[in-house]
């Protein structure tokens, strides 16, 4: 028997997964816009398809989280309260040890963390900001090239924001994938939290989010036991 804690609801997982897949596909299709030579490699039908896909995916990327948020306002509130929670001593220690830890997980050990660990608050928070930026600038670019005229200055700003957000998404997104999909050894099995059943084992929970794990185990309402 192993104890598990329910970390993410089905809705949260679907929202995350759909959005992140859209985001990855957007990045790839966007790359064909961003990097000219790639475009030249493909026949025009394909690049045309890619262009269309970028717009459709953009809608998915924007609409899915928005709809999800509207359906679960409490969850949104909870999420933001976690992200905006006060930093305690452990958080500071965590951030100080972050780099050494990444380069020596066998030797360096991290302090206990709350439901959203400080690293997440920083990196995923920035991911959220970048996502919002790229979404908003994307909407401006789409509108500005079709139905309204915003003027050259604003469009240039939007281009720049779109590109900047893309840079952030690239950096933090890669890190997020590295950790979230468990390529990084200490994060093995993490994938299931979002791409699986949403459960995290007692052991992993204690390792990653010590404070939170203990709270939940004590409360017990999110704890399930599954036969090995």
């Amino acid at each position, binding site marked *: 028997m192993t104890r598990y804690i329910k970390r993410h609801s089905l809705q949260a997982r679907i929202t995350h997964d759909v959005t992140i897949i859209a985001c990855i596909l957007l990045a790839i299709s966007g790359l064909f816009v961003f990097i000219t030579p790639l475009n030249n490699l493909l026949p025009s039908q394909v690049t045309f398809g890619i262009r269309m896909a970028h717009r459709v995916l953009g809608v998915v990327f924007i609409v899915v989280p928005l709809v999800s948020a509207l359906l679960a306002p409490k969850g949104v509130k909870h999420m933001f309260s976690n992200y905006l929670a006060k930093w305690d001593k452990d958080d500071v220690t965590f951030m100080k040890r972050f780099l050494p830890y990444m380069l020596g997980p066998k030797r360096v050990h991290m302090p206990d963390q709350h439901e959203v660990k400080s690293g997440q608050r920083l990196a995923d928070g920035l991911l959220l900001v970048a996502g919002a930026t790229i979404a908003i600038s994307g909407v401006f670019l*789409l509108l500005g090239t*079709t139905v309204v005229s915003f003027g050259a200055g604003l469009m240039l700003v939007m281009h720049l924001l779109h590109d900047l957000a893309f840079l952030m998404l690239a950096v933090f997104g890669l890190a997020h994938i590295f950790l979230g999909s468990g390529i990084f050894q200490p994060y093995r099995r993490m994938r299931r939290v979002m791409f699986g059943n949403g459960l995290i084992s007692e052991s992993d929970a204690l390792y990653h989010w010590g404070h939170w794990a203990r709270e939940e185990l004590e409360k017990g309402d999110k704890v399930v036991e599954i036969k090995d």
Partner: protein
Amino acid sequence: MELSRRGFLQATGLALGTSLAYELSTQSQAFALEGDAPFKLVNTEEYTNICCYCSGGCGSICSVRDGELVNLEGDADHPINRGGLCSKGATMSQLRNIVTEDTREIVYNPNRMTKPMVRRPGTSQWEEISWDDALFEIARHVKDTRDANFIAEENGVTVNRTEAIASLGGSQQNNEEDYLILKSMRSLGVIALDNQARV
């Protein structure tokens, strides 16, 4: 620019919709043009001509493919215009073909009337008429008018004329056509024969 939230959402939808619709509607064209569109003058035949506007006599070249006019521009050989044509001359192809607004297709200029027409007395519309009927009716008119108004003699001089028919034109036709018009009209006894040399 100001947009309400609702308006913003609508606009977003509209933008996406129109952009998709445009992309889709032009898809076939984009596909047809795939990669390098062929050069406009591939497999054309060239014929020289002379401009139909002022009397500069500027040379032009008509490029024709499959019996259709593909391009018309100045003749670079021509000693007078060296390839040059003014706005009117450069647009001579549009007398026959024009480009549609949305799809940029080349079609016959709808402003040109290319069938014989007749307007009957008292009516306010053209009716189509066959060439044979038109020629038959006009010849009838000509003969009736000439015969009823023919002056064979005046003060003892043979004059063989009719004052009842007039003909105007010539400066738009080729020389050969002018001769035929002149010869036919004068032979009918027409005195009132004139052209744009004065108007």
